[in-house]
């Protein structure tokens, strides 16, 4: 029995990993490493903007590929998921392992953190068991120098038997040497002889019983010593993967089964059961990493982590930890709300002027009045509203959020809040996905991938919509500003901020409550194991933060909103202007919804605005205005006062504003978020639930508030 050659090498890359090379001569480089080692900085520095991100086939794990050219050769760089190990068998670890093992990259570069080498060597040693073509890239050399940590790279290279390159990817230090080393290893011009991890004698003996047969079956395709070890460990996932990639089941071979039985017998005789065996495997790796790191790392400054510890002492302190966190998040919101006013006003003016020019242009073209109305009053004004209301807050929020992320503060938030999430039977990292949800719920749902246990991840996905995203913030802010605040000046913006903050806190409380209820009902189960790394604080790279957050997040979200707003503007304009029996379609719908809407403190137009706002929450207020206006198109909103008058003319009270705020906080997720949930959970059932849960919560809360206020005679 042998391997089918069509299913190896480039064939596997294309079919199983969807890796597309331009020509067979392209060299494929896999990039592996622990999280928080600056792996993505290495990736970005090597490939620049020539990259493409997607998902691994059939998985919800991000896959980034990039290209670069060095000395006339083309390289395709594959960024593998960040993992600490390849032994625990999470989805990420399986992807990384399968790619290194079956994807047969020309080189695998393992990125390690120079300030924390011992822990990183764990993964390096495991990868060295799988492939010979390994390079160790010791990154963050600048951080290490600052902390007085010296890594002796040559010695490390000699001890590991693989090339070692020191880099500081953000300054570009060492990247040329890395490229040169990649070239040499890829072209087999550099002798690489990885040192194999030594296990204790019984294990070695057991391996030797199996290895020859594995080698006879697999040849040089895969490292047979490693496969033998995995077989001893009864690693089913590897057998399954081998079946998938090679169409070949290793344990079908009788001779191998026999020697495997012998090996297990040997282990049994020495009282090594499966648990003990696994312990010994890990112990072998950890001890080797310990031994090597002691030989190559010199800490000149024993108090190198004093700064981090002092900062942690403040930021996660018993008394100040949570107040500081609330203050920081509050500051981010305040800056976003306050700072967005001016550019928003500016954009509104610009769009108003543009409308004049557009009108002249369309008149010059001789456009019929009907088409002009649709294009300008419908599509253009909706677009202009969405851009001027959404762009400034996002362009402020996302960079600030990315700044906190870059500083290393976000894992501390998870650390501070984990206790409360544990009480709700959820995961501390849900705090981070919630924070991300403030920017965009769809982005928050995608961020739930960082939660590695499926149950907790589902809880985080289903409850993400409780935090108001950037699309709903303007609604909350506008309503708070109009109705809950009388007067003007500094006090009013403070009061509006407090009202919005209260809404946010309510959202957080509902998140806990819903998580708890879900854990007690449809997502029953004990919280799974929790480990959270608190990486060292890092100096943020301001320039890169702005570029990354503007391009990756702001423009992405805005582009989506614009794409949705334009057709939505068209449909809404038609609904508002197409009359049946002397009344617009919008009015008919609103009338139909009126009785129910009144029960929950809203009116038919508001509910209709939320329904039509399904594609994007940003357009709820514009739709509402369009519905209320007799002219049936969006008006120029010069001031909140005009808006307030319009609402009061339609029988609004403070209760209407409060109920609309509550409903904005708790209703169905927007179309994009629902679509993202569908993709992330691969399930219609969970998508449906993510629609129903917040909607029911919103209806119940609004009903209680509206009826309560009416019974008590508050309105």
């Amino acid at each position, binding site marked *: 029995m042998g391997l089918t050659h069509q299913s190896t090498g480039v064939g596997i890359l294309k079919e199983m990993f969807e890796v597309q090379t331009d020509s067979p001569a392209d060299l494929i480089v896999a990039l592996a490493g622990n999280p928080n080692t600056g792996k993505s900085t290495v990736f970005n520095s090597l490939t620049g903007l020539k990259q493409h991100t997607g998902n691994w086939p059939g998985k919800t794990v991000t896959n980034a590929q990039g290209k670069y050219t060095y000395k006339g050769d083309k390289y395709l760089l594959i960024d593998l998921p960040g993992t600490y190990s390849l032994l625990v068998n999470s989805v990420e670890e399986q992807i990384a392992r399968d790619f290194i093992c079956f994807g047969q990259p020309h080189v695998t570069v393992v990125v390690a953190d120079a300030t924390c080498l011992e*822990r990183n060597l764990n993964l390096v040693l495991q990868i060295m068991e799988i492939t010979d073509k390994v390079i160790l890239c010791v990154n963050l050399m600048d951080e290490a120098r600052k902390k007085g940590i010296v890594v002796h790279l040559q010695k490390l290279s000699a001890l590991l038997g693989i090339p070692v390159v020191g880099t500081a990817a953000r300054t570009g230090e060492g990247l040329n040497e890395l490229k040169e080393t990649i070239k040499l290893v890829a072209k087999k011009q550099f002798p690489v002889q990885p040192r194999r991890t030594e296990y204790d004698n019984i294990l070695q003996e057991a391996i030797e019983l199996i290895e020859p047969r594995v080698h006879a079956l697999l040849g040089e395709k895969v490292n047979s010593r490693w496969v033998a070890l995995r077989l001893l460990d009864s690693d089913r996932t590897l057998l399954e993967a081998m079946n998938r990639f090679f169409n070949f089941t290793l344990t079908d071979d009788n001779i191998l089964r026999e020697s495997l039985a012998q090996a297990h017998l040997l282990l049994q005789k020495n009282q090594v059961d499966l648990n003990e065996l696994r312990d010994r495997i*890990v112990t072998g790796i950890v001890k080797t990493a310990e031994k090597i790191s002691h030989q190559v790392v010199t800490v000149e400054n024993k108090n190198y982590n004093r700064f*981090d510890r002092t900062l*942690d002492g403040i930021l*996660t302190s018993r008394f100040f*930890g949570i107040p500081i966190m609330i203050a920081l998040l509050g500051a981010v919101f305040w800056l976003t709300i306050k700072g967005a006013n001016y550019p928003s006003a500016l954009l509104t003016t610009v769009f108003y002027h543009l409308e004049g020019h557009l009108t002249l242009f369309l008149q010059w073209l001789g456009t019929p009045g009907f088409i002009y109305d649709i294009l300008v009053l419908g599509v253009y004004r909706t677009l202009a509203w969405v851009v001027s209301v959404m762009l400034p807050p996002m362009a402020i929020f996302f960079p600030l959020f990315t700044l906190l992320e870059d500083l290393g503060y976000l894992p501390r938030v998870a*650390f501070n809040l984990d206790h409360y999430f544990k009480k709700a039977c959820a995961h501390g990292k849900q705090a981070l996905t919630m924070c991300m949800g403030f920017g965009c719920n769809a982005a928050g749902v995608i961020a739930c991938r960082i939660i590695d246990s499926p149950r907790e991840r589902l809880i985080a996905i289903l409850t993400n919509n409780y935090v108001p995203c950037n699309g709903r913030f303007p609604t909350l802010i506008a309503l708070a500003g109009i109705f809950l605040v009388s007067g003007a000046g500094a006090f009013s913006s403070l009061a509006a901020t407090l009202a919005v903050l209260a809404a946010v806190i309510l959202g957080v409380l509902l998140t806990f409550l819903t998580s708890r209820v879900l854990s007690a009902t449809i997502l029953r189960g004990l919280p799974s*194991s*929790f*480990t959270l790394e608190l990486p060292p604080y890092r100096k943020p790279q301001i320039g890169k933060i702005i570029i990354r957050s503007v391009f990756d997040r702001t423009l992405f979200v805005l582009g989506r909103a614009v794409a949705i707003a334009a057709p939505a503007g068209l449909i809404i304009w038609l609904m508002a202007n197409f009359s049946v029996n002397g009344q617009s379609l919008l009015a008919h719908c609103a009338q139909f919804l009126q009785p129910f809407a009144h029960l929950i403190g809203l009116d038919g137009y508001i509910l209709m605005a939320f329904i039509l706002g399904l594609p994007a929450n940003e357009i709820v207020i514009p739709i509402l205005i369009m519905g209320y206006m007799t002219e049936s198109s969006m008006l120029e909103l010069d001031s909140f006062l005009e808006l307030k008058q319009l609402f009061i003319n339609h029988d609004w009270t403070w209760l209407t504003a409060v109920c609309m705020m509550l409903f904005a906080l708790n209703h169905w997720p927007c179309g994009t978020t629902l679509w993202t949930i569908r993709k992330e959970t691969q399930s219609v059932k969970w998508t449906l639930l993510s629609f129903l849960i917040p909607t029911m919560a919103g209806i119940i809360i609004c009903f209680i508030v509206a009826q309560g206020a009416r019974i008590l005679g508050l309105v």
Partner: protein
Amino acid sequence: MNNKLIPLHQVPAGFYGKVKKLIAEGAARRRLLDLGLINDTVVEVLRKSPAGDPTAYQIRGAVIALRSEEACKLFVEIIHD
């Protein structure tokens, strides 16, 4: 020298413990071992989170937070130095 083994979550902040026994099973066991928590590993208890749980530990150069549910599966010997 006191050889009494106590679960890691009961070790107060500022103390060092040497891992002597791990009673977790399955995936949880692997995860803890993967952090390098094998026998004789020295763990420094750094601090408790504001609510008292989880706790941050210095393990082989990295700072890792563990909930008491995980930490109680590790039995350590307090190091007095």
